[in-house]
């Protein structure tokens, strides 16, 4: 029992800090305390997660599956601990960047930090789930806090629109997810993912309900990552929400939904020689592959036409959901490693780009047009250089981590005989160069506008530094991350 509690430490600590942060929010008027408290909380969570990461895996083997407090519903160690660290880190970066931005644009800081902490706890629960119910609870904790974060500027009509749109469509998509989980339970007789896998391999499942359930889960999760037919909410929501919050939503939120994708589809698409199952597996994989291809092409083509940088990044985030889905479609360990690597790189570059936007944004979403970036390199050389790094990494130019993420994903697709998907991915990647490089052209080769932009960094310097350092380190030494990730699956 003792060793189980040690493995549960990250979940226990984040829950403790979430609850105390809410109580402090109510009791204390001064928000500097909840700011410091949430930062301490996330650092403690990173510490405990690193501890569970380095406990020898022998202990995990000896952990008997019977008589656990968590009844085998929670997954310990491995990729779960890794993503605890990633999500807590993303939350930390967001909180550090938010303080100056929210204070300037909105002046009220009420429950902002607690909301970020709650979101992180939901994401961590998704990573730890070994049971479809825990997965569902994690997704809902995350999504509901996102609905509130999207409408955080409650005096701005755009923010309210974003929140309402996200809430209505999100709860509708959740219905699909729950119905899919119910049908999967009906088809295989269990909610425990390992038992589902063993029942599938043994052939003890209802064919039609299995296909229906997997399809509905696919729809629900595709909505959460904003993949092709279910992506329409993404641009409006990401544009209307507070900039730092939409950076957090579109990066860490997407990564968390991709973990849910890996966890579910790794277990319901096992590699076995059962002829019925193989046919189903190929069908589902092909559907995901087509979704991935459409998502990439549509996201990138629509992003070409945007003149607002925030909206452009929203469409590019749709395209990146497509790249990440390649790893799910290929359904092998290279693919999952690729998703893991690319999630980390994507969080760093997308969150970084949104933080740069939040630094120059003034008066509710002005200064975000493409023409506002003209000549930024002359007025703010450091900011322009940072933005250029994030754009190059998003486009997948070699010295940065985005390149290796795409590389692993494309290799996994080739290994799984999806050569056509790789070709589509490369083509859409080339299309995306146009608008990413377009921003760099504006910043470096255009004359600055008459009134120079102000830049107000505050504590945002720290997350920007972390993002650039991470992108360069993982870009130059990708094996640091890839070798760790390789042992998870």
């Amino acid at each position, binding site marked *: 029992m003792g060793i189980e509690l040690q493995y549960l430490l990250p979940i226990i600590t984040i829950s403790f800090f979430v*609850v*105390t942060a809410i*109580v402090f*929010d*109510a*009791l204390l008027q001064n928000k500097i305390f909840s700011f410091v408290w949430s930062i301490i909380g996330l650092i403690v969570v990173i510490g405990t997660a690193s501890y569970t990461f380095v406990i020898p895996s022998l202990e995990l083997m000896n952990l008997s599956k019977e008589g656990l407090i968590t009844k085998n519903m929670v997954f310990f160690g491995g990729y779960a601990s890794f993503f605890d660290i990633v999500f807590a880190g993303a939350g930390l970066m967001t909180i550090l960047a938010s303080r100056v931005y929210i204070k300037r644009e909105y002046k009220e800081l009420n429950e902002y930090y607690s909301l970020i902490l709650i979101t992180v706890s939901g994401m961590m629960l998704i990573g730890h789930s070994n049971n479809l119910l825990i997965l569902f609870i994690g997704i809902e904790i995350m999504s509901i806090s996102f609905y509130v974060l999207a409408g955080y500027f409650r005096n701005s009509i755009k923010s309210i629109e974003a929140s309402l749109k996200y809430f209505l469509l999100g709860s509708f998509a959740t219905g699909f997810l729950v119905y899919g989980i119910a049908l999967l339970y009906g088809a295989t007789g269990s909610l425990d993912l390992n038992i589902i896998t063993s029942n599938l391999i043994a052939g003890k499942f*209802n064919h039609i309900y299995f296909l229906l359930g997997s399809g509905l889960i696919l729809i629900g999760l595709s909505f959460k990552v904003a993949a092709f037919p279910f992506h329409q909410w993404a641009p409006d929501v990401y544009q209307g929400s507070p900039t730092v919050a939409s950076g957090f939503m579109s990066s860490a939120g997407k990564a968390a939904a991709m973990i849910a994708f890996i966890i579910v589809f790794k277990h319901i698409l096992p590699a076995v020689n059962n002829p019925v199952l193989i046919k189903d597996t190929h069908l589902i994989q092909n559907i995901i592959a087509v979704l991935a291809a459409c998502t990439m092409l549509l996201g990138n083509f629509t992003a070409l036409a945007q003149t607002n940088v925030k909206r452009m990044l929203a469409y590019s985030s749709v395209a990146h959901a497509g790249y990440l889905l390649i790893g799910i479609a290929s359904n092998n360990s290279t693919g999952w490693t690729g998703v893991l690597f690319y999630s980390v790189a994507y969080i760093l570059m997308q969150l970084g780009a949104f933080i740069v936007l939040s630094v120059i944004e003034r008066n509710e979403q002005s200064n975000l047009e493409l023409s506002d970036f003209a000549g930024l390199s002359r007025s703010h050389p450091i900011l322009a250089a940072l933005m250029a790094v994030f754009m190059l990494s998003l486009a997948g130019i070699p010295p940065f981590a985005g390149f290796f993420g795409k590389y692993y994903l494309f290799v996994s697709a080739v290994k799984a005989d999806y050569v056509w998907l790789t070709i589509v991915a490369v083509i859409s990647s080339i299309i995306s160069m146009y608008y990413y490089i377009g921003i760099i052209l504006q910043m470096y080769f255009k004359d600055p506008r008459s009134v120079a932009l102000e830049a107000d960094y505050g504590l945002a310097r720290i997350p920007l530094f972390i993002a650039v350092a991470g992108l360069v380190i993982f870009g130059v030494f990708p094996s640091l991350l890839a070798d760790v990730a390789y042992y998870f699956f």
Partner: protein
Amino acid sequence: MTLEYIPLVFMLVFGFGIATVFMYLSEILGAKRSTKEKNTTYESGMTPFKTARDRFSVKFYLVAMLFLVFDIEIVFMYPWAVQFKQLGSTGFIAMMLFIVLLLSGYIYVIKKGALKWD
């Protein structure tokens, strides 16, 4: 496998059938004596004085939502109290955790003034 569901289909068909038949039978066979009292919205209640499609204070929603939370709490606590001895220390710790979480939410609600009417 599908045969198991046939009773369910029967129940649905008969349920709908009986409800529809009774409704229309009372419409056809029943006496129709209309009085002024019968035509009001609430025959034995207050007479409505305004349209119902009106905006009212968000506080009503808050109170309704908080009522739901504490109502659900009771639903969890009854079975726990009945099975207290069998559930043992695990059940006790779990319920204490649940109450502490609920209490922190309650403190938040009180301090934010959600229950203050003015």
